[in-house]
């Protein structure tokens, strides 16, 4: 109990000190020590800083953690590098006042490495246990779960009774239980209660703790721990299934995006479009160029890139149709040949313009990271958005083809070109528009893929085979088939992968498709009727 | 227990002493027409996505007969031929060729090899090959892979092709690509292909569509001359033509038989007039 009181005093002292410290500048001697310190020697300096400065040091730690801490070569004073509307500015670490007239040449970076980052994170968490925002406090507790030492526990214990926020309190309780469960000097019954409490949590650190308890000397503890683990595993398994399903849907959405344009150019128009992949590639490069043009608005760049990519790929598609495909009506196999040639040309074209190297496309901040539902289930945001986006594109396309005359006309043209002409259908226009639409959608797919994979000259090649496979598996000429095929192949692959590995899963899926087509020679959703025979 | 019984049962079934296993029975190609009948079609049903194209259809055709099949557009005439020739699987029913050949479990090629030939409503010929080659391919020969690989035209076969060419009036076009023939010429070529195949049963779907009156007459003669030795089933909407060849006429309606009889009987059948012929048909027919 005495301990506790002492600690509380200490804590208040610390707090009041930090209030005071925030006004004046922290000890300069320690700070200058940071400059020019070897990486190995930095931890003790930082520790000292943390101990003496408390919360006041947070800005410094945060900047250092982000790798943005610099010092001015001239006077060895510390500044943070910030990005303000695309301009790099340097601000004083504590007062946040911009230091004018500094350029990159005048400053030098203070390096950090993993060890330091690990330390910083922990230190920040310790300090943040008393932060104002409940979210910060909660994440601080969670951060600390992996390194619960006596001091931390004491701190948490002191804060626990006064914690108002339910979630933070819960997290703190968890930390205390974890500590209690492992304290050998505690009475076993208390430990058992703690273990019981742990069995409701999905935190990885909890599981690690319980796993360690399996080696405990007390058989009752071991039994309880194993029961708790069992409990957790059962719940985790359920989430693992959801996780896998999400992976499958996500892969499916990528397949869908990649193949949906082909479902039009190939499925509806009958052009064996080997340049489809390059249309995707053009879309991805468009995203790159858009980000190049608006480097300070990466978060909005996607919204510009989507229509831009649609236009670029779409216009390229119209161009290809007007120059080449138009002359190949009624000779579907020859379209394979010509579009293969076009795909070679387009690949080399981007190689010439953009170099053969991959280009960097950044992910907007709102698409980065993941949506953490609980400690074992988190869905990555970019994939979540892409999944939604794929469905949206699909629906839009279905509407275009069903509700506008384009859809009807293109089908008529592909079934009987000269009769369509005789019915007043402007076949040239329809062809160009349809090919443009298919290509444009491929371009949009490129925008999405640029968020997941390489933007390089080979991007298209990587997707062309899968795209054809999906369209054919679904049934040529059937958009719904493409949708179902994409998702079922995606899900099948993802459920196979854990047991077979990625390579074998791919092989199994291919063999499955081959065998499936024997059963249904026209794909999942075959075209029916007399004429289809 | 019952599963066990089933196994025993099926074992017994497999080894019944009064029957030989199907694969041991010698391939029968002879058509058994002991009771005069060459084609039995019984209780045939077929629907496409709920649409009943054939509805309890029964049809019996005697050996050597020339039978005309008429009926409204969409009555199921072509579909019936599709079922007989193995193109379409029916939902239920029986189709026998002679007394022994169940056509329903045979594929198109097997049925054709049994001696059932067919002319399609829309003429289909091998467009990229010459008229001559079209006929050569149709000849009645062993159609297995190896025999075909090593076969050569015998003089009799060449004579036969020449004869057919003369009959169908394409002698001048023998080396022309079939694809370049006009619609009517393709009709003739297809009839020629039938003749070359020398089948036992001919199913002829609308042979005179697109032919001039004189050609129609010629076709009528040809078909009449074929009957007797062969059995011919003709589908046609040209009543004049039907009248000129028909002995027995069967009228289909909505997938089943509406009436059957001689031409005169049919022409005076009220139902037939209502759904098919129309009131003024007779008058119009007489005009020419």
């Amino acid at each position, binding site marked *: 109990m005495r301990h506790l009181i002492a600690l509380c005093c200490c804590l208040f002292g610390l707090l009041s000190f930090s209030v005071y410290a925030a006004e004046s500048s922290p000890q300069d001697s320690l700070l200058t020590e940071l400059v020019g310190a070897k990486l190995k020697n930095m931890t003790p300096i930082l520790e000292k800083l943390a101990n003496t400065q408390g919360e006041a040091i947070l800005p410094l730690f945060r900047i250092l953690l982000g790798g943005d801490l610099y010092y001015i070569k001239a006077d060895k004073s510390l500044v943070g590098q910030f990005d303000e509307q695309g301009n790099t500015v340097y601000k004083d670490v504590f007062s946040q006042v911009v230091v004018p007239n500094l350029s990159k040449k005048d400053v030098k970076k203070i390096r950090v490495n993993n060890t330091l980052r690990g330390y910083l994170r922990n230190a920040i968490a310790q300090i943040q246990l008393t932060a104002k925002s409940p979210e910060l406090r909660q994440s601080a507790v969670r951060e600390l779960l992996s390194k619960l030492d006596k001091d931390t526990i004491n701190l948490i214990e002191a804060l626990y009774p006064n914690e108002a926020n339910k979630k933070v309190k819960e997290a703190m309780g968890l930390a205390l239980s974890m500590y209690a469960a492992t304290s050998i000097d505690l009475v076993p019954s208390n430990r058992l209660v703690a273990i019981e409490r742990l069995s409701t949590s999905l935190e990885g650190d909890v599981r690690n703790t319980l796993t360690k308890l399996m080696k405990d000397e007390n058989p009752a503890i071991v039994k309880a721990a194993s029961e708790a683990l069992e409990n957790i595993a059962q719940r985790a398994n359920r989430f693992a299934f959801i996780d896998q399903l999400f992976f499958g849907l996500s892969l499916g959405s990528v397949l869908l995006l990649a193949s949906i344009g082909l479902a039009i150019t190939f499925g509806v128009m009958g052009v064996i479009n080997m340049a489809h992949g390059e249309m995707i590639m053009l879309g991805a490069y468009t995203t790159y160029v858009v980000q190049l043009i608006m480097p300070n608005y990466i978060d909005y760049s996607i919204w510009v890139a989507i229509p831009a990519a649609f236009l670029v790929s779409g216009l390229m598609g119209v161009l290809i149709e007007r120059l080449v495909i138009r002359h190949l009506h009624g000779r579907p196999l020859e379209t394979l040949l010509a579009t293969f040639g076009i795909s070679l040309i387009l690949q080399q074209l981007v190689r010439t313009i953009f170099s053969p190297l991959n280009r960097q496309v950044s992910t907007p901040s709102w698409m980065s990271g993941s949506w953490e539902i609980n400690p074992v289930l988190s869905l990555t945001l970019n994939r979540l958005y892409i999944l939604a986006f794929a469905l949206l594109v699909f629906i839009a396309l279905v509407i275009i083809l069903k509700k506008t005359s384009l859809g009807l006309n293109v089908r008529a043209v592909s*079934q009987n070109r000269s009769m369509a002409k005789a019915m*007043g259908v402007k076949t040239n226009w329809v062809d160009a528009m349809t090919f443009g639409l298919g290509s444009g959608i491929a371009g949009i797919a490129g925008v999405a893929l640029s968020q997941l994979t390489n933007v390089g000259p080979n991007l298209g090649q990587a997707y062309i085979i899968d795209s054809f496979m999906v369209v054919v598996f679904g049934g040529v000429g059937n958009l719904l088939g493409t949708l179902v095929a994409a998702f079922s192949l995606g899900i099948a692959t993802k459920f196979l992968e854990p047991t077979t590995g990625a390579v074998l899963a791919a092989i199994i899926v291919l063999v499955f498709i081959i065998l499936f087509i024997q059963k249904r020679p026209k794909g999942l959703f075959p075209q029916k009727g007399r004429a289809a025979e | 227990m019952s599963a066990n019984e089933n196994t025993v049962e099926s074992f017994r079934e497999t080894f019944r002493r009064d029957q030989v296993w199907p694969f041991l029975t010698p391939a029968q190609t002879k058509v058994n027409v002991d009771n005069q009948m060459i084609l039995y079609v019984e209780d045939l049903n077929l629907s496409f996505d709920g649409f009943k194209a054939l509805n309890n259809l029964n049809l019996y055709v005697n050996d050597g007969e020339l039978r005309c099949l008429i009926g409204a557009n969409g009555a199921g005439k072509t579909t019936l031929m599709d079922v007989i020739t193995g193109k379409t699987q029916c939902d239920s029913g029986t189709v026998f060729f002679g007394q022994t050949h169940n056509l329903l479990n045979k594929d198109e090629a097997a049925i054709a090899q049994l001696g059932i030939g067919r002319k399609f409503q829309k003429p289909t010929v091998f467009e990229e090959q010459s008229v001559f080659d079209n006929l050569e391919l149709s000849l009645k020969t062993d159609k297995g892979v190896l025999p075909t690989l090593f076969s050569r035209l015998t003089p009799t076969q060449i004579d036969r092709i020449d004869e057919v060419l003369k009959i169908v009036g394409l002698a001048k076009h023998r080396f022309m690509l079939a694809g370049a023939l006009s619609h009517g010429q393709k009709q003739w070529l297809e009839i020629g292909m039938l003749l070359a195949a020398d089948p036992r049963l001919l199913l002829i779907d609308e042979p005179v569509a697109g032919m001039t009156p004189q050609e129609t007459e010629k076709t009528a003669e040809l078909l009449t001359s074929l009957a007797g030795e062969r059995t011919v089933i003709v589908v046609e909407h040209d009543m004049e033509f039907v009248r000129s060849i028909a002995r027995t006429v069967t009228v289909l309606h909505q997938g089943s038989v509406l009436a059957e009889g001689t031409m005169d009987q049919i022409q005076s059948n009220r139902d037939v007039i209502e759904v098919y012929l129309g009131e003024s048909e007779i008058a119009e027919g007489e005009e020419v």
Partner: protein
Amino acid sequence: MISINKVDQLYGGTQILWGLDLEIEPGSITCIMGRNGVGKTTLLKAIMGLLPIKSGEITMHGQALNKQSAEKRAYSGIGYVPQGRDIFPMLTVEENLRIGLPVRSKRTKDSPKDIPEKIFELFPVLKDMLHRRGGDLSGGQQQQLAIGRALVLEPTVLILDEPNEGIQPNIVKQIGDVILKLNAEDGLTVILVEQKLGFARRVGKEFRLIEKGRVVASDKMENLDDSLIKQYLAV
């Protein structure tokens, strides 16, 4: 209305039409006859613009059609019912009919959202079949659909290539009635290729006989006598 002057046409190396001349009067029903393979279908396709001609001129209302694409000709009011029907097989009956709606709205200046009821009055069977695939219909049903489809365009000239091929007798009669009715009521000009004399005589007002790609006889239908038939139609 439509006049065809010295039209030559070739398939690859073989000439089919040889300086063919033909005059179609407005409001007439002209029946083009001739043996198989003389070039009737070829002629109709040339009028419709589906086949390029080598030389000569095709005019409608004095305007040259030669340079116009087929779709333009549809807008000018030519409706075409091809030999073999050429239904869009995977489109439903309704969709087959809807294809022509844009042309119709351009031609009639009202913009109909729906298929004119008139079509279903003429061919009631199409109404029952509205949602079935065109390719699934029987031959006769397809033929009716093909005519109905051409009528959606609200054409002033209707070209029919052997419309009775494979059609049941009462419908043949009905088609004849339809042609006569449209001709009488709407003044529709009809160009008809027909082999069956009975039908030709009943419906046609004029005839043109074609032999080896040339028009060899033309007159009023009443004047089509046995000697002409023997000379140009007999085998």
